[in-house]
């Protein structure tokens, strides 16, 4: 009887299909782009042909090599201080990767922590956290980040802190909702009966069950955070010069824009777009695969 049932439920072709379809629409190219950007960020000092912060004033505003006046010494041209654009792009990846990932993780830790506390403990803790979340959501995020950056002054790690405390709300909301339903599940109730402390339940039983959701949200937040970092740097309250960051390069490039020095604007923007686009595509895929509940988000 059981062998018959197995035959019906799991014929050979059927057994292979889940794995295949699970990976069938895997966003290979976006993942590769993210991996390449990550590797470029790690090995920036090996890959960059020039020092990104030191230019030569005789080589200012050189166009990319394929245009007249350009040379293969500066493949993607030079900026207003004669610095190599390619090298600055390569080192700029470092800023975007470091700020992007650490800020997303930082926001995730705050938001997930508060979400679990609020959802599991309920009562006044829930009220306080949810009112705080509402207030935070009412703040215009980018303006608030600019405001904070203007107070604490520009530095890369300040930006990480600021973006973390600006963007945690979405995690808190979603995770709280998940915890509310987890709380009613058998395994959590059994843990209560077995005499586990609230802390143990939250850390050992609830946290592992919401971590998937947090990862999906984190991937989706990566793009938002990278654009926010670029915006702050563009406005002059982000990563301080002469450190190479893509947003800062766009801000510098604005001077040459009206004279037609297009490479100072097009290349850094393309880098931001590629990274954000890849993160969004990967995040969308993860959302559908890992967490069906988030599909309509």
């Amino acid at each position, binding site marked *: 009887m059981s062998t018959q049932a197995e035959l019906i439920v799991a014929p050979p072709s059927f057994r292979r299909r889940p794995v295949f379809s699970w990976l069938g629409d895997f966003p290979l190219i976006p993942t590769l782009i993210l991996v390449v950007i990550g590797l470029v960020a790690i090995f920036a000092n090996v890959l960059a042909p020039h020092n990104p912060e030191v230019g030569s004033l005789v080589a200012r505003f050189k166009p990319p090599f394929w245009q007249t006046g350009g040379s293969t010494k500066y493949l993607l041209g030079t900026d207003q201080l004669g610095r190599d654009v390619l090298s600055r792009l390569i080192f700029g990846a470092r800023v975007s990767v470091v700020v992007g990932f650490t800020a997303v993780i930082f926001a995730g830790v705050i938001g997930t922590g508060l979400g679990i506390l609020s959802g599991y403990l309920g009562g006044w803790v829930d009220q306080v956290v949810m009112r705080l979340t509402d207030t935070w959501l009412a*703040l215009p995020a980018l303006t608030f980040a600019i405001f904070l950056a*203007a107070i604490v002054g520009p530095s890369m790690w300040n930006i990480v802190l600021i973006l973390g405390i600006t963007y945690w709300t979405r995690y808190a909301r979603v995770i709280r909702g998940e915890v509310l339903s987890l709380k009613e599940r058998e395994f959590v109730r059994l843990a209560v009966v077995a005499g586990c402390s609230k802390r143990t339940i939250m850390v050992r039983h609830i946290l592992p069950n919401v971590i998937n959701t947090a990862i999906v949200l984190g991937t989706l937040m990566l793009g938002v955070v990278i*654009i926010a970092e670029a915006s702050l740097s563009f406005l002059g309250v982000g990563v301080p010069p002469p450190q190479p960051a893509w947003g800062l390069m766009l801000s510098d490039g604005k001077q040459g824009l009206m004279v037609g020095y297009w490479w100072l604007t097009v290349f850094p923007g393309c880098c931001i777009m590629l990274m954000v686009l890849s993160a969004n595509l990967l995040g969308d895929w993860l959302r559908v695969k890992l967490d069906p509940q988030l599909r309509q988000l």
Partner: protein
Amino acid sequence: MKQYIGRRVGYSLLSLFLLSLTIFFFVRVTGDPAALLVEPGASAEDIAAIHHQFGLDRPLWVQYGVFMSSLFHGDLGQSFYYRTPVMDLYLSRLPNSLILAVVAMGFSLLVGIPSGILAAVRVGRFWDSAGKLFALLGLSMPSFWVGLLLILLFSVYLGWLPSSGAGTPLHLIMPAFALGWYFAAAHMRLTRSSMLEVLGSEYVKLARIKGLPQSLVIAKHAFKNALIPVLTLAGVNLVIMVNVAVVVETVFAWPGIGRLLAEGINFRDFPVVQGVVIMGGAMIIIVNLMVDVLYAVIDPRIRLER
């Protein structure tokens, strides 16, 4: 109904209170405001004098009381740079920001709604994919970069449009597009999902069973109902637009609130920066309250639920 609205108003007041507390906290705790006012290397007496002048030597809760009472009188303090009240500056820039936001919103709805409907009606086909690509690009390109590319194309190479400033309708085209694309993408996505939901509903099935042609089903039965959530979002987004326009306004030197904020940062004009954030937060809280109340008036399910 009254109870529901009362609770909503209470929550909004609480949010406003927390907002003021948050801003106050960050200004006072993360640094000495006097340090922003004096030249680097000023003497201790100078700093103490400034402390006294602005009441910074009083206890924190007294300072907060003063801060709150002036907020209630619509006083956001004095701009260091312009030497005029921040509120006056804010109100003088607000019309420009609203014009830009309204035009950008018009553009985003004009593009977002039809393309969202088209994508939902032709789900999984060419227009759906094209719409997805358009939305994905809109969500992935920083708006200020879109602005810079537009300047490069239409001002530098083609010479059709002015690259910065305000005054003529021509000045509005590029900033409105740069600002509106992201929102067009958001509106398109929402229209698509809302339309898909409505198309699967019982009354649309009934309309189909009655034998109505596809165009009539979509125009008369589906479209109107699918539009409600989109228009609600658009109302909230209009306020958000005014507040996120800072980078786009900087790119195009558009004299709105965002530009005021950017100037505030450049001139170390702290009251201006603080005032713009407070006003932005207050506007969003009030609009959210209005949406909640309006929903309760329109939809009895919501007001009976709580």
